[in-house]
């Protein structure tokens, strides 16, 4: 039986107390929401926090709230299952809904949270293994070793951002609220993941707590999410494509195409996006955007499927995503 290592445990009922503990304990403490990411990682001894701060009593961190302007606020500890069942969310944010229902399995979604999904640790086939296994490869850069076995020549960690909701949040221009003992700040989802290295996968200090997610009303835009994986349940994305288009009549006024799971951070296909602006979504426009989307994705041999295949699938998926928005 894979078992958890020991840890000190705290479950304060309010965010202020949580951030106080996080501030005091520093990186030795780790927040847990649903635990569906943290606990497997702890059981494999990838992370062994001295203190686990559980959010389960902090009821204020839950909830789904619609503002009068049609924007949405979600509490980070809202379960994926609850969000999936929200009819309005499905209606107004179909791409987010699609991303959420594609996460693992109904069982996991019962406890897994949106906040956890947004803060999901990066993943790698050299990392998400038992302690004994990692010892056989002499550990890796992200976890006590000094080489990234995915790209041994380099100096950075190539563990992959494998969250389904992250690319959608970026495409929708979502904002994340972070709280610490120093107060509250709001960041663009895009900036939250603006990182280079899979070791520090979020632009967030260890003492900061994600306390809210705000998604602006999508002004007449259409959105979609497509996911490459081997099985239609359980499996993480090994390529995720989120796309949103805003149009004026037939003409595209704003486009966002975000890839995920092809590197430590999500990738905006800015050139492809630019190419669409001012155009109609014609076959030619889609072809051009598709070709431009190849740049930026650097799939390596640390997830399911061969990297070369994943790379080939980027334009295929981008094209399909755009086609689905017609």
């Amino acid at each position, binding site marked *: *039986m*894979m*078992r958890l290592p*020991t840890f000190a445990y705290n479950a304060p009922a309010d965010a202020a107390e949580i951030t106080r503990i996080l501030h005091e304990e520093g990186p030795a403490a780790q927040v847990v929401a649903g635990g569906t990411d943290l606990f497997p990682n702890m059981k494999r001894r990838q992370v062994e926090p001295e203190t686990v701060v559980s959010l389960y009593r902090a009821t204020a961190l839950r909830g789904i709230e619609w503002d009068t302007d049609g924007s949405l606020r979600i509490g980070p500890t809202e379960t994926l299952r609850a969000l999936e069942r929200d009819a309005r969310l499905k209606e107004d944010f179909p791409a987010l809904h699609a991303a959420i229902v594609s996460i693992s*399995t109904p069982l996991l979604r019962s406890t897994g949270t949106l906040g956890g999904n947004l803060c999901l640790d990066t993943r790698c*086939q*050299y990392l*998400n*293994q*038992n*302690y*004994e*296994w990692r*010892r*056989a*490869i002499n550990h890796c850069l992200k976890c006590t070793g000094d080489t990234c*076995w995915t790209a041994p020549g380099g100096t950075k960690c190539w563990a992959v951002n494998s969250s389904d909701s992250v690319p959608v949040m970026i495409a929708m221009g979502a904002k994340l609220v972070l709280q610490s003992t120093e107060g509250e700040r709001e960041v663009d989802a895009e900036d939250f993941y603006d990182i280079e290295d899979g070791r520090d996968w979020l632009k967030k200090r260890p003492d900061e707590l994600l306390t809210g997610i705000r998604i602006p009303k999508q002004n007449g835009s259409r959105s979609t999410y497509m996911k*490459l994986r*081997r*099985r*239609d*349940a*359980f*499996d993480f994305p090994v390529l995720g494509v989120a796309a949103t288009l805003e149009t004026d009549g037939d003409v595209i006024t704003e486009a966002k195409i975000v890839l995920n799971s092809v590197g430590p951070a999500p990738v905006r296909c800015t050139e492809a996006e630019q190419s669409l602006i001012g155009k109609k979504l014609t076959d030619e426009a889609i072809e051009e955007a598709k070709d431009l989307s190849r740049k930026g994705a650097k799939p390596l041999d640390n997830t*399911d*499927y*061969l990297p070369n*295949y994943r790379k*080939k*699938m980027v334009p*295929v998926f981008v094209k399909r995503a755009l086609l689905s928005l017609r």
Partner: protein
Amino acid sequence: MGDYRIIGRKQTKVDGLAKSLGATKYADDLFLPRMLHVKLLRADVAHARVVSIDVSAAAAMPGVHATLVGSELPEKFGILPVSQDEHTLCPDTVRFVGDPVAAVAAVDEDTAFEAIQAIRVEYEPLPAVFDPAVAMRNDVPALHDYGDDGNVHKRVSMEFGDVDGALAGADLVLDDTVFFQGNTHLAMEQHATLANPEPDGRLTVWSSTQTPHYLHKAMSKVLGLKPARIRIIACPNGGGFGGKSDPFNHELAVAALALKTGRPCKICLTREEVFYCHRGRHPVLMNSRMGLNKDGSITGLHFQSLLDGGAYGSYGVASTYYTGALQTVTYRVPVYRFDGVRTFTNKPPCGPKRGHGTVQPRFALEIQMDKAAHALGLDPAAFRLANLQPPDSVTANWLKIRTMGLRKCTEKVIEASGWNDRYGKLPRGHGLGLACSSYITGAGLPIYWNRMPHSGVQLKLDRGGGVTAFCGATDIGQGSDTVLAACVAEILGIELLDVHVCVSDTTLTPVDLGSYSSRVTLMMGNAAIQAAERARDLLADAAAEKLEVPKGRLVFADNTVLDSEDPERSMSFQQAIVFAEAKFGTIGTVGSYTPPKTPGRYRGAGVGPTPTYSYSACVVELHADEDTGRVDVDRIWIAHDIGQAINHYLAIGQVEGGVYMGLGEALMEEMAYRPRRAGVHKIPSMLEYKSPTTMEMPPVETFLIEDPDPEGPFGAKEAGQGPLLPVMPAVANAVFDALGVRVDQCPITPELIVQAMENPDKRSGPKSYPDLRIEKPVRVKTAEEGGDGYEVDQVRKKKQLARERRTDEQKTTQ
């Protein structure tokens, strides 16, 4: 079909409710007072000499009760007598990442985990090899000091008739090289074992094993305890599929630690460790050359296989033979040659998985049959039907075919799938594929050559009207407990639940060789029938006397014994027992079963024969995406020649389960390693080793073809393994129908489909087949050529062969 009350009907299986109530006790569900928990330290290098092991720090940790290292148990073991190459814990050499070197027993699993991390092992690295073609080279150090040479564990070559001549004379010769990747059983239950040292010095072991009898042997050998002092109880297995058929390191280590500490010791492996136990499907590279005449007949077949065996022998010698043996039992192959080589490599050992050894060559053969039909301009179904091996015949390699339901199976799936109207005519991206197959209903020979029965059943008849059936067979989910009860209940005219089954306990039950090779229903079933008939005979004697009716007129039905001509003259089944017990004393009977002799007498003739072959045919309908290579299977039709279903639901369950597992192998399951990173298993987890979920499983339409076989109990043949075999090639053939590309490799992944779409020859798969350095095959004349089943030019050897067998027998029966 017989008119049975229980056989073939939709009866609830005897252990069904216990399982759905969560009441069934699997090995890890057992807890004993004062029980210690065991963990194994496994090698983190692929190949090395063990220079030293220092367990002192672990032993000194609070809560640690004992440690164990390899030198304490020098005796080797292994499932086959010819491959005794495993140690409980490696004393001097480790051969793959995961090979165990030390063990700890501690108060709880957390402590045991901490303790194994404190063990210091010094290794001296040895060159590791992961590729069988490389392993065969002379300059690569051998993993073992036995085998055929170097890292060649087994080299087999046999020729039945003049194959070169037949190929030279053919109108067309197809030459295909195909690769089948290894995969594993992935039973949901992780192996667990509990050992209890009894106060009187005996040892009791509960384990998730499919072969308690062979574990008993290994345990006795390694621990140096008389078999009579060891009791092995196989718990209901939470899935086996062949993965729990070998004696395992952890079983022996736990037993040794129980003896050492004087306390019960338990282990439950982690999922990662289960991947190291493996014994799953061998990766096999194959080459098949088939000669064909324009009229659509096969002139001859030359089949070659190169098996990547992993680090130990396991069933590997048998697996090697099996990659060649059954290529002749479906279609008429007048002359046949088979060359096979199994090599050792520094990976977890391969062994028997559902369809043992015959799955990979079947994949190659059925793809080749499809290609042959297209090359000849024939319909693949018609081409197969025109070439079927006839019933009651002997194949080129001297296998005796009895009933043969493949025609009916094929016709059934052709009809149900609308094949004739739809094959080759579906829109692009949609396809149909057909494949046929066959499997043994139990191996004709036991693992240790001897003349004793392969299965034994004892019945105890109770004055209260109950019957207890004792048998060594193990229920691994296939339903053998129900088969046992059903055979007995049918004969004695009682209900299923009137039969108590007491199984898989080496102390209480007569030997059944184990739940492998699809042998249990046929062998145990026949033994059960014999025992039940003997019991019925005793009861009939007493009842006839009491009822004053001729014995021959008595019928046993509905818990009564009655006169068939005057049903009023009757007594209850229980009364019959009472009268019989009064007349004869305590009532107990025995039955046993030994398979018939095989006509093949040549070296290697032992693998392939069976009391009777089962047959299956399968049509797969799918759609494939030419840009992404994604395959979605829409529907599967499968017909299985089962002879006679003993229980309708059990039979359907085996077929559907086989199709499911086959689909996993066809589309996604593979054992992958990282040779450049210490040879670690790439994906030893339930998440990354892909097992199909509900989302991947299509509807399946199952047809049971019932044509009772005289060798089977009530005519039954196997269903546990056969129905898996046609699924993978049917998928490959359907992909061809959908996209016009050939994927000569299994699993048929999106990557391979995309690659085939891009390749000019519209094919992906292995490019070449290496030279296996086979010198001279064993030559055997076929029956048609007037052969006698012995090797040519070795008539002299016949007597010697017989003599050798006799000495073997003496050796193993001692």
